[in-house]
């Protein structure tokens, strides 16, 4: 963890800025790769970027002797081939370099930290350095010369000069720790490429200059054995090769079939249509009434009948006709028989529609049934027509009829006794359930088309909350209601036709499967 020098907050080791105060955290402590200069956390011994061996903590690269750069060497005598003018130009450049270096040293002196300033050469030592600079190449200063009594000193120490040389050639333990992995002959590599010392205490010993060349040797790459392709790979390669070498084939020509062949190909479809049409039309033409005396009743339809039959005289009922002409064949018989029952019970009706077509369809049915029961518009029933607003529409109606503006039709404190919903689409049933039945707790029944039944059934089966007291489904539901109420109507009259049509569908399923299995069997026998 890195501690922020400003606020003292602890940050992750790789953080470059403090997470608390945003101050830069500087170079993170750790080891820097000598090759790629990638910083690493303490304890990492191998560079994660280039694989070079890292210098452990406590061993700074600055300990490795480096040759200092001498500014005066830049202004040496001109080399062979150089013109005097060029030498003068170089000399002029060297003077500029010396001025720059002097300027840099001045700047360094101003910006140099105290600990580095202490390492600066003391004024009294400048003479000695000047003497050393005057030495010829190969000469050593006096302090580096081998003392005359060096052999005696070794004898007193109990070692010979040869042993001392061998001992000096040994790699110390800390250096041995730096040996790259996989490199066993570090000494040979260093001795082979680095010149031996010619003077001083290290005379005759090679490989003493710098450890970077050794550390920079990356680990030997492990040769990868060439993999053996699997048999599946050979198969895929052979398949690809065969596909590539296969000559192009001409396109398949589709012959134009004659009109008779086309008619024969579509004869099955036409036969299917004909079977269904005959199944629907023939019972109607024969005037069959078998279902009128054998029509069973479902629990959902019975529940709807009971909810309406239990209404008190003069109860206010809201009837919503939310369907379009597409499902009018099953919804209009439903609406007709239910309206007859409601008017027979003397209920006051409030008619609305969430679809524009439903408003027109309901108006026609309402007027027909009202004429039968002597209902007067405005007194016994009202038609609000098409109500816009989607979710807001049903809720707006229920909110509005509770206001004093409706006092001519709704009595004081009177509320809806029942909501009757005729839905040709699930969304309309859902709107009434979510926006009115649930929030206001009003009793509700629904007559739905056959396609809506699966979406309405969960609400009807929810016995705990009684969301739907009754559910009437499709033309069959209308026929059941007519059977219960004892008013035979168009729904019951069409049940024979519907029964035969259902039987025809079952036969079509049977014939289709027989043909399918016959073709399969013939194909197997042919194979």
């Amino acid at each position: 963890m890195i501690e922020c020098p400003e606020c003292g907050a602890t940050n992750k080791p790789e953080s470059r800025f403090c997470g608390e105060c945003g101050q830069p955290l500087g170079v993170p402590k750790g080891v820097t790769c000598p090759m790629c200069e990638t910083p690493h956390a303490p304890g990492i011994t191998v560079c994660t970027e280039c694989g070079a061996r890292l210098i452990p903590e406590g061993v700074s690269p600055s300990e490795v002797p480096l040759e200092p750069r001498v500014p005066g060497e830049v202004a040496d005598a001109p080399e062979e081939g150089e013109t005097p003018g060029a030498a003068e130009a170089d000399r002029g450049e060297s003077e500029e370099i010396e001025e720059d270096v002097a300027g840099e040293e001045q700047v360094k002196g101003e910006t140099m930290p105290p600990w580095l300033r202490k390492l600066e050469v003391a004024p009294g030592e400048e003479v000695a350095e000047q003497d050393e600079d005057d030495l010829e190449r190969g000469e050593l200063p006096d302090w580096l010369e081998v003392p005359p009594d060096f052999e005696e000193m070794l004898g007193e120490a109990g070692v010979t000069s040869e042993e001392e040389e061998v001992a000096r050639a040994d790699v110390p333990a800390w250096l041995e720790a730096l040996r790259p992995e996989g490199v066993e002959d570090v000494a040979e590599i260093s001795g082979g490429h680095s010149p031996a010392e010619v003077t001083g205490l290290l005379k005759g010993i090679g490989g003493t200059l710098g450890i970077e060349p050794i550390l920079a040797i990356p680990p030997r790459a492990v040769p990868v054995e060439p993999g053996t392709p699997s048999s599946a790979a050979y198969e895929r390669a052979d398949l690809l090769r065969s596909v590539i070498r296969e000559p192009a084939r001409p396109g398949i020509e589709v012959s134009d079939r004659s009109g008779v062949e086309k008619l024969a190909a579509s004869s099955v479809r036409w036969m299917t249509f004909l079977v269904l049409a005959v199944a629907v039309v023939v019972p109607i033409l024969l005037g069959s009434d078998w279902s009128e005396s054998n029509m069973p009743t479902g629990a959902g339809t019975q529940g709807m009948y009971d909810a309406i039959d239990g209404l008190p005289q003069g109860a206010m009922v809201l009837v919503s006709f939310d369907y379009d002409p597409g499902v009018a064949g099953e919804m209009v018989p439903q609406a007709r028989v239910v309206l007859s029952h409601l008017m027979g019970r003397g209920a006051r009706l409030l008619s609305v529609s969430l679809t524009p077509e439903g408003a027109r369809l309901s108006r026609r049915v309402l007027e027909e049934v009202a004429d039968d029961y002597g209902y007067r518009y405005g007194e016994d029933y009202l038609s609000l027509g098409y109500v816009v607003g989607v979710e807001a529409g049903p809720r707006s109606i229920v909110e509005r009829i509770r206001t004093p503006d409706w006092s001519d039709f709704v009595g004081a404190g009177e509320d809806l006794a029942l909501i009757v919903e005729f839905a040709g689409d699930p969304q309309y049933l859902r709107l009434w359930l979510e926006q009115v039945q649930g929030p206001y707790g009003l009793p509700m029944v629904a007559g739905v088309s056959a396609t809506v039944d699966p979406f309405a059934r969960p609400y009807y089966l929810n016995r705990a909350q009684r969301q739907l007291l009754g559910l009437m489904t499709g033309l069959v539901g209308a026929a059941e209601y007519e059977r219960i109420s004892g008013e035979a109507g168009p729904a019951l009259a069409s049940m024979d036709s519907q029964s035969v049509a259902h039987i025809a569908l079952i036969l079509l399923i049977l014939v289709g499967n027989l043909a399918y299995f016959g073709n399969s069997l013939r194909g197997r026998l042919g194979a």
Partner: protein
Amino acid sequence: MLVDFFFDEVHINALGGFFVESAVIVVAFALLLGLLNVLVVHMRRISRREGGWFYSIALIAMAVLVVIAGISGPDAWAVTWIFDHIQFPLQAATFSLLAFFVATAAYRGLRIRSLEAVAFVVAAVVVLIGQVPVGRYVGDFVPALKDWILNVPATAGVRGIIIGVALGTIATGVRVLMGFDRPYGRGGDGAK
């Protein structure tokens, strides 16, 4: 409106009622806006002579005709004649084709090719015959089996769909209210 849904307080209810009425008015104007948009789109289609542009002429002509016919009210003779003799027969005839498509599907599609297809075909046959009076003469178990199929497996599946849609609606509503989503007007000047 959400607060009005959860709390039964007079002032909150009044405020909720105001918003409900406002929503109805806004939706009514949205219908008018939709009509204008349809007219503009098809006028542009005619001016550019795009494919099927002559159908756009018929659409605009009928729209203008119905609007003119309905100026005197929805119970006008011209409006009721258009509904009774054009729109209703067309919609009823289009939906009636479904019966013939179902018949074709019964012959071609309901093939017993797998175990799942067996269950599908058996359920279809039981519901078809149990839904009509003739099913009771096959046996009392047929209507009972039909009711079980409709009340248990089918209702379970639909109930799962309804609950899933409800949860998705809640999540969408929360995201819209929190500003994570903008269902309408995305990409416009206001979407920044």
